[in-house]
């Protein structure tokens, strides 16, 4: 008899797809914050008096 707690291959594929999408979303968010920080602060940093 098969173990009811075992995940079916289809379910595993769906979970893997979700995890990859989430990882890409988080990665995109990190890049977004980094780029926006450069845009918002970049000009001011370049013009600061030393």
């Amino acid at each position, binding site marked *: 008899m098969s173990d009811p707690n075992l995940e*079916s291959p289809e379910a595993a594929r769906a979970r893997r797809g979700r995890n990859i999408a989430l990882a890409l979303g988080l990665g995109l968010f990190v890049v*977004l914050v980094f780029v926006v920080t450069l845009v918002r602060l970049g000009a001011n940093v370049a013009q600061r008096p030393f």
Partner: protein
Amino acid sequence: MAMSPAVPRAMPARWQDYLQLMKPRVMSLVIFTAITGMICANAPINPILGAVAVLCIAVGAGASASLNMWFDADIDAKMRRTRGRPVPAGRVQSADALALGVVLSMFSVMLLGMTVNWLAAGLLAFTIFFYAVVYTMWLKRSTPQNIVIGGLAGALPPVIGWAAATGSVPLNAWLLCAIIFMWTPAHFWALSLYTSEDYAKAGVPMMPVTAGPASTRKQILIYSILFVPFCLAPVLTGLGGAPYLAVSALGGAVFLILAWRVFKSRSGEAPDERQDDGLYDVKAGSKDARNLFAFSILYLTLLFATLLAEHLLGVAPMGAVL
């Protein structure tokens, strides 16, 4: 020791199901109108910040759609057009749709406020609240004026785009909002004339269900007559040029002819016996309503695309009178 019978485990949702919760087709329309508002503002905005603003507006729209699907799962399950959505179809848990909507709402509003400006973020927050709470939770189930008032949520993205570019919302921004707002009743009632059985089954008081098809056809004509002048108005406020005048006038004339045909037709009178979920395959009696519904989408798209093209190409407006 006896083993307990195997309980079938629920199939986990695929990432595409979560994307479907955000109504990607509506999101694409929101992106289009928001970009139009942003470009029509004629204000220099950093392209990266402009892209972030559009992303936030799109994600905000997706968040409110997810909240809508969470709350409306019971009525979505009763309608042919919506029964395949992720929550009523059992592919996504109701609580997950709620969580996605809340998290993305906060994410989009906060990011827009911190990176662009708080006026745009405030307008986005208001839009999400208006769609998810005022329209979905209150108006939709309580009054046949649901889509008239609720249409404001769909009309605000160009205003948010304009606010993101300039930090202000002048008359012309509100004019873009008014065009979509006045377009909504004729567009949705034309659709609901030939899908009213579904709405009746789900207990949603759409106009054809509560007031009947004849009254709905009359109101479609009245709203169409009120709508077309709003489409022409940008020519008088320094927003639209000669190409826009041509598109809005010609398209407006066709819109009025189609609305008149709906008024004179018997659209919505006989029961709709469609078996599929398509929005365009209707039986002969409702073809006039179907034609108006289809043309309304084309007309609004043309209006905004013309304004967008004029401002990108630097076509001079006709000159402000108002």
